[in-house]
């Protein structure tokens, strides 16, 4: 069914169809519309879920953990400080192998109070064992949320999945949304280690140095296995509903000499910049990274790479740039742009490419213009 929706509403629509048994959430700008809409669905009876209006994000994730371990489907949503506040529990969720799905509306971190788009919140969760996907359109927010449940709950994965949307730039903008008749796309959940009072077990017990690393390795093994599950799920989604996704969305990359790499809405905006650059005779392409965990194999060999980071790791560099250099060994031009909602137009992006200085870092609006 075709309609018009915001990114937040699209997520809520997908959650309604995935029908988690328990939703536990705490409001934070710009995520509020997601949880308000879910609460409305529950209140009106359109969703049969239990909505736990917890008193903090730490408790939101803890409640999802407690619910999930009984073997049922759970969902939550947060943003920025909310995500940071639940950090202890995001680690717990992954370590406990619980397929919780969470929408995170990417937002800057204080101080100062800034509610606008930035990716540092989610990127600080890189190492927790969560799978992370970053979307760029309202339609993709909906599709990725649906797929997240199927991927998380797959018995080769059993890890939580975070669906990331840019605050306001995607959470609050209206775009067309084509909802699907879900059918059996998400199979019933079966958690092999669900609590069973007839077969009592201890969960998360004291674990010695002879065992702990085995559990850690098991998370990594499942993240590696998730590559296949993500591919299968996206393939099945395309087969059933006609929309194709991958680990990256490549635009005019095949013959490109310079490729722009970014995530979220910047990655989509880069496509417009590519067209402008091509008109000027510059062989540009763009590669929008969708999945950051697991981190995809990137084919950037022989190409100049311009990475745009809407985030930063102080004392090291743009987080995306750092990851890409580590993976491809190719030198990049690292652009830090869009922090705290700083406006970045496709003309600006085209400018980054025209004036690139491979091997250097450039803070848009701060360091001398390229």
């Amino acid at each position, binding site marked *: 069914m075709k309609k018009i929706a915001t990114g937040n509403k699209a997520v809520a629509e997908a959650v309604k169809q995935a029908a988690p*048994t328990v939703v536990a959430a705490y409001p934070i700008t710009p995520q509020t519309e997601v949880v308000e809409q879910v609460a409305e669905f529950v209140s009106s009876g359109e969703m049969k879920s239990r909505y736990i209006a917890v008193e903090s994000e*730490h408790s939101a994730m*803890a409640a999802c953990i*407690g619910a999930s371990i009984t073997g049922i489907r759970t969902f939550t949503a947060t943003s920025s400080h909310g995500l940071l506040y639940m950090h202890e529990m995001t680690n717990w969720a992954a370590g406990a192998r619980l397929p919780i799905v969470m929408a995170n509306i990417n937002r800057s971190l204080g101080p100062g109070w800034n509610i606008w788009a930035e990716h540092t919140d989610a990127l600080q969760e890189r190492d927790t064992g969560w799978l992370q996907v970053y979307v760029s359109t309202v339609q993709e927010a909906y599709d990725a949320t649906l797929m997240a449940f199927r991927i998380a709950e797959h018995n080769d994965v059993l890890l939580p999945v975070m669906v990331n949307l840019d605050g306001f730039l995607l959470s609050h903008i209206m775009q067309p949304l084509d909802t699907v008749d879900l059918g059996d796309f998400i199979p019933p959940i079966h958690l092999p280690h669900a609590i069973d009072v007839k077969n009592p077990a201890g*969960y998360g017990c004291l*674990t010695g140095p002879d065992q702990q690393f085995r559990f850690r390795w098991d998370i990594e093994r499942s993240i590696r296995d998730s590559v296949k599950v993500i591919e299968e799920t996206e393939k099945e989604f395309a087969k059933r509903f006609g929309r194709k996704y991958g680990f990256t969305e490549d635009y005019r990359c095949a013959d490109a000499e310079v490729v722009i790499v970014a995530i979220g809405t910047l990655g989509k905006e880069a496509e417009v910049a590519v067209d402008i650059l091509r008109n000027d005779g510059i062989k540009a392409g763009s590669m929008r990274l969708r999945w950051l965990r697991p981190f995809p194999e990137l084919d950037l060999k022989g190409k100049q790479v311009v990475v745009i980071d809407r985030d930063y790791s102080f004392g090291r560099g743009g987080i995306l740039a750092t990851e890409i250099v580590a993976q491809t060994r190719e030198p990049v031009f690292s652009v830090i742009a869009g922090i705290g909602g700083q406006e970045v137009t496709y003309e600006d992006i085209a400018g980054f490419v025209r004036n690139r200085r491979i091997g250097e870092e450039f803070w848009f609006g701060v360091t001398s213009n390229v």
Partner: protein
Amino acid sequence: MINNDRSQDRVLRSPIIHNHLQELDTIPEIPKEEYILKCTSACAGCSDSLSLRYVLKAAGPDTVLVVPACCTSVIQGIYPNTAFNVPVYNIAFGAAAACASGMSNAFRAAGKKTNVIVYAGDGGTLDIGIQAMSGAFERGTDFLYICYDNEAYGNTGMQRSSGTPLGARTTTTPAGKTDAKKDIDAIAAAHDLPYQATACAAYPQDLFKKVQKALAIRGPSFIHILAPCPPGWRYSTEKSVEMGKLAVKSGMWVLYEREYGKLTIGPQSKVAMKKPIPLEDYLKPQGRFKGIDPKTVDILKQRIAKNFAKLAAEEATP
């Protein structure tokens, strides 16, 4: 309410107290099933595991324990073994009540009546877990929150918690604590719980009955157990039950329950309210109170009297 003029005999002849003692005489039928198996990693004389033994006997096998970081995390044993014969979900320090909230909702959504019991220490309840607990209470979560209170962070080597009493030495209050014990029961009561009680490891039958009552009531309930701790309180290991009894007899701990807001003070504490034993009898055997300033003892005595008066007045209110 403390009336030292009356003899113990005259107190016992009081009809109200007599009835209570009769009720106490009806010893509940304690199931033989054990849910705490042999070879726990508890310290000698541990009253946390003694209490949990009776909690689980009262709760039965259709029960899940949610345990934040505390002595019980250790007592259950080391992976891949567990000494507890019910499912135990270990969770981060401040998250027990929230975790239980999700779990209870999930069980109820699935039509299951499984008891969800948080079993947390004083640090995990009075300090780091108080927000999650308050939230779960306010939301009417169908669960039982039990705080076993050894009045310090025992697991990490006896650092002060807000449950540590005034004057007690801990590793972070080497000269004795200068602040009073936090009144978590008053805080819990402010949530207007359907059921709330205090208990003490030295009175396991009383504890057993209170756990059964709490679990029979739908909605949130809270039981606060005083759990004497030999290494933490620095007394010899065979004296845990005696310490608990001295706490009640001196009035440092009061046994009571509130059912839908109606307070009933336990018979043991009724006796103590009429004629408490000297507080020094409770303080002296404990190394943690060694060298306590007499002025601090006086403050403790005043607090006991004030607490007794407050509870007696509440109980007398129709």
